């Protein structure tokens, strides 16, 4: 039923959400450096890996068992990690700040805007930004010769799907946060995900038990999906990754919308 409400809201009240996006654009226009830094960070990582680390490592085993250059192996993981980080920071730190500190949403809700408008607008903005970052990063990958297949085009919607999944769960988590100290837990969760989700090395370096544990990591599914797309190793297994991320987005979205409603309109 909630999904039905969400769809109805998207179609009839899209204009409300677009006003929330307009506000975020206005703020971004005043803080362009913050916006640019979100793109620059993964590109710096990529240069470091291509020029430095990649020379030392040489080739590694790709998803299809064949050899690929280390930079081509790591680049899609950086794209996935940046999609995750962007969505999570926006939905946790960003939402927490605006809701509890800035009381921004209280001001919005005194107007004809509804909690659904606010939620859709914030998610929409986060996704627009994610889209811009993903396109820019893909361009860099193409220029550096790290894209092996036309399937790579689908890596951009895959990054957006990751944004929905991590953004929805992040938003749900943010509604349970009470103080800035709680937000440190977010960093504590993100770092191991970033390092151990078969991001910088293939999954098969782990023993069997750790491999299974890693497959529970949502970032692992994002990395595996995007890596297969940019390297062109396409198979039905990819749909499993898509399903995992989609399930995250739906469950997170339902919890977030219910919690936001309770908290914003007591």
């Amino acid at each position, binding site marked *: 039923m909630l999904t039905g409400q969400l769809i109805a809201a998207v179609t009839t009240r899209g*204009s*409300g959400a677009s*006003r929330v996006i*307009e*506000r975020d654009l*206005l*703020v971004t226009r*005043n*803080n362009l450096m913050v916006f640019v830094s979100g793109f620059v960070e993964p590109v710096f990582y990529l240069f470091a890996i291509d020029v430095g680390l990649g020379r030392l490592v040489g080739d590694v085993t790709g998803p299809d068992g064949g050899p690929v250059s280390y930079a081509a192996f790591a680049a899609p993981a950086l794209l996935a990690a940046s999609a995750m980080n962007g969505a999570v920071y926006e939905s946790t730190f960003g939402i927490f700040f605006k809701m509890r500190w*800035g*009381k*921004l949403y*209280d*001001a*919005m*809700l*005194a*107007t*004809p*805007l*509804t909690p659904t408008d606010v939620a859709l607008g914030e998610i929409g903005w986060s996704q627009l930004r994610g889209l811009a970052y993903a396109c820019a990063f893909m361009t860099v990958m193409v220029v550096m010769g790290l894209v092996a297949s036309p399937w790579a085009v689908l890596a951009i919607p895959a990054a957006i799907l990751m944004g929905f999944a991590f953004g929805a769960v992040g938003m749900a988590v943010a509604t349970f946060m009470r103080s800035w100290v709680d937000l440190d837990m977010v960093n504590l969760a993100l770092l191991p995900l970033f390092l151990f989700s078969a991001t910088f090395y293939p999954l098969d370096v782990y023993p069997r038990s750790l491999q299974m544990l890693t497959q529970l990591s949502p970032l692992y599914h994002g990395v595996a999906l995007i890596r297969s797309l940019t390297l062109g190793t396409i198979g039905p297994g990819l749909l499993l990754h898509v399903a995992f991320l989609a399930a995250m987005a739906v469950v997170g979205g339902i919890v977030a919308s219910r919690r936001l409603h309770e908290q914003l*309109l*007591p």
Partner: protein
Amino acid sequence: MVARGLTKRFGELTAVDAIDFDVHTGEVFGFLGPNGAGKTSTMRMIGAVSPLTGGTLQVLDRDPATDGAEIRARLGVVPQENTVDEELSVTDNLYIYGRYFGMPRAQVRRRIPELLEFAQLTDRADDKVTVLSGGMKRRLVIARALINTPSMVLLDEPTTGLDPQARHLVWDRLHELTRQGVTLLLTTHYMDEAEQLCDRLVVMSDATIVAEGSPRELIATYAGREVLEVRFPPGHRYAGWTGLDGIGSRREVLADRVIIYGDDAEQLTSAVTHSGVEVASMLVRRASLEDVFLRLTGRRLIE
């Protein structure tokens, strides 16, 4: 606006307990009461941002439960805390707020200079709101509430935390609004604010309404005409409390003084003098809303 049996509960706590009131078009209506009396909860229900637990409520002839967005479109809201957008300038705050109401860009831009003028912030138009003083932020929030040319403005403690000059400036702006025929609903815990601004008010205490009327009517009904405040030298308080029995129509014993109500202050003064009670000082004054409040709730409003 009509409220009947209006009730709000948060779990075990009853914030508003079955209150009735009417607000007429064009008047200034006040909710007077201490913190925690239920004023803000009432305002939030009227503002269609908080569902009722019980009773009925009509705002601008509509039901907030079903027509929330339509009601909010015609209201201006000045919340207790200044919910300005700290990441935007003064002008952009007004601009984006107008956009939240769905106003066309050109129309919002036309309206901004008038509102800056109204709030006396014209020379701060391009400043970030973070550098504004408390009084300026308050005036910005009031101006922002007017962007949609509302029929009714809700003000939750409009001058709490402001210095005296800033308060007078805000009052002056609110008087200007009433001259334009806008209905104002405000909450306050300041007596002088209620007397200054309200045509009619209700006194709230512990989630209920304990009195209703114009400031003048309330004073006449509950306080009488004149008041004598008597203070005692250190060590003589108890004697003072008991020795003044029978003087005036009513007495209120506070920690530091006794307040005696009556119609003729001269008569009260001479009665106290003849009672033989040792007195440090006596002060005659006109009865005020504070006396009404004291009588109705048995405590002072601002401790």
